[in-house]
């Protein structure tokens, strides 16, 4: 663990989205007084993560837990309300676009919906050549062409595709093209936001293998966002489980599946429909996922947690290292009640 150099650090990240934008919409007339109520969606409430070079950190959680927002903040698509993003030692969340440009070349992103991640009006050639021309201005046309051919060959794109338009391809083929676009700037860090959730099972395997091959061949570091734990077991070296904007458990993939500590992680693992006879006790959660607008007090999971007690309702559990390299934020684990 020690000789690994830190590539990405997320420090005390908070991100809130005001629900009603205009000043006018926020005014409400309650019991005679004009009050300005600004309701906010608390997407991320204090997230700390580090990714070492060459690792693949998977961030897992259900919809509304803020995992995609983390990805978008790391890639500077949205700025954090509070906290910092540090890439290879430099803080990148407050840079002007000029100074940010070199980092843009080194960090790239792969998206979820293959039918919306390619510009429908551009041929595949333009889509792939545009980043190459942009990031390699000094290279000659021939050199750029070789970069293009190598990238296409590495993701299994047939050269005859270049003249065609995105709507002529299947979901799997489009995802390959979008991966080629991300790899065309020869990045060192890739954020993949649920890259295979929108694909069929047989195609998912193809794309996942592609990402694994790329990771080995190019020594890439990954931030992999997904809601499917079985994919995590396959791809991730480390896992962070998120629930309503906070991280409830962080460890290596192996120890997460061997000994899940947080009750939510246990519920997630037991909820995956297994092929074999499933006689494992199914950890039953009750109630509905609360909205991230008015978060529950204390531990955000207490409304659905079968082990919640008064302490959980009032005091937010701090992240502790229950076992070496295995962090968890839960009073019940702390008091060995589970």
């Amino acid at each position, binding site marked *: 663990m020690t000789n690994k150099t830190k590539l990405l650090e997320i420090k005390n990240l908070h991100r809130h989205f005001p629900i009603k934008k205009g000043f*006018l*919409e926020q*005014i*409400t*007339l309650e019991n005679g007084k*004009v009050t300005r109520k600004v309701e906010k969606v608390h997407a991320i409430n204090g997230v700390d993560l580090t990714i070492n070079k060459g690792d693949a950190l998977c961030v897992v959680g259900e919809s509304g837990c803020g995992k995609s927002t983390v990805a978008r903040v790391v890639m500077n698509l949205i700025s954090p309300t509070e906290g910092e993003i540090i890439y290879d030692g430099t803080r990148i969340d407050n840079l002007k676009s000029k100074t940010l440009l070199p980092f843009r070349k080194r960090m790239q992103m792969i998206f979820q919906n293959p039918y919306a991640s390619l510009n429908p009006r551009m041929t595949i050639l333009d889509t792939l050549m545009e980043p190459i021309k942009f990031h390699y201005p000094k290279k000659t046309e021939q050199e750029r062409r070789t970069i293009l051919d190598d990238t296409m060959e590495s993701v299994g794109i047939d050269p005859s595709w270049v003249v065609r338009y995105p709507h002529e391809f299947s979901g799997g083929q489009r995802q390959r093209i979008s991966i080629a676009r991300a790899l065309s700037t020869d990045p060192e860090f890739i954020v993949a936001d649920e890259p295979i959730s929108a694909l069929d099972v047989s195609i998912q395997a193809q794309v996942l293998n592609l990402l694994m091959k790329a990771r080995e061949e190019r020594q890439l570091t990954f931030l992999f966002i997904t809601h499917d734990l079985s994919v995590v077991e396959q791809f991730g070296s480390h896992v962070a489980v998120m629930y309503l904007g906070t991280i409830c458990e962080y460890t290596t993939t192996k120890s997460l599946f061997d000994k899940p500590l947080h009750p939510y992680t246990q519920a997630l693992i037991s909820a995956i429909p297994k092929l074999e006879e499933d006689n494992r006790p199914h950890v039953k959660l009750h109630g509905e996922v609360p909205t991230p607008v008015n978060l529950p007090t204390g531990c955000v999971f207490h409304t659905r947690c079968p082990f919640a007690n008064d302490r959980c309702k009032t005091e937010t559990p701090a992240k502790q290292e229950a076992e070496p390299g295995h962090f968890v934020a839960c009073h019940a684990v702390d008091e060995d009640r589970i």
Partner: protein
Amino acid sequence: MATFLFRRLWQAIVVMFIISILSFAIQDNLGDPLREMVGQSVSEAEREELRDKMGLNDPFLTQYLRFAKNALQGDLGTSYFFKEPALDVILKKMPATIELVICATLIIVFFSVPMGVYAAIHPRSFVSKLIMGISIAGISVPVFLTAIGLIYLFAIELGMMPSFGRGDTSPLLGMWESGFTSWDGIHHLILPSFTLASIMLPLFIRLIRSEMMDVLQSDYIKFARARGLKLNRIYYLHAFKNTMLPVITVGGVQIGTMVAYTILTETIFQWPGMGFLFLEAVNRVDTPLIVAYLIIVGAIFVVTNTIVDLIYGLVNPTVNLFHSSK
């Protein structure tokens, strides 16, 4: 509900403020108020002195503030032509236009809803093709040609309808000169209101048809069929209520177009309403009357938009007007 009204009030103030600034700017550099009030013979010096006395040389802002102060008290300047307060002149003519707009709206709602819904439910039938044919022709015929056609057919050839004027009116609840009270008044109303309606009717038929066809493709309609509900219930409750939402919002915006077209309709039918008055004021460059008309029309829009939003809020449950605390 209070919040909704409070917000509307705030928007109304902003809109009226902008309109007043625009109207004042028009008044300021449009025509010379003095020329109208004072004959040619008055010398330049006297004219200059009079201008000073009337405060026409003050800076723009002070003149505007004076204008706004008067406006708030209902004094929008006096019309050059009528030599009466502009507001009173317009208010006298308002009932004619309002009644015309009401009749036109009734005609639109009464015809466009059934025709639009029918064309959506049976897109292939001959009647729907006819309806769509008429509506696309309708939006291609300028309103004055419709008017000429109607007058020619009903007034000249068949002689059934009066071709102009408003017929006799009698006061209804005090100061409102209404044409509804007598058959002759209504008789005169028919052709102009159909002309005014003819602009929007095809538009709404096409809008209702396309919205309804979208709704009929939606999942909840398919689920209604999957539950074995009667077709009529699916069409006229499930689909219809969802269709009406976008139609109400568009209706709110289109009221502006209707008020604008009253100018045209009233000119053709010599209808003694605000629109006709406005056009005469424009030809006579009777600035205070023009300005007064703008402000009143602005007020009408603010009121109608509020009403339309209110209706929308009542029909669409996702818009919680009443801030029911969850």
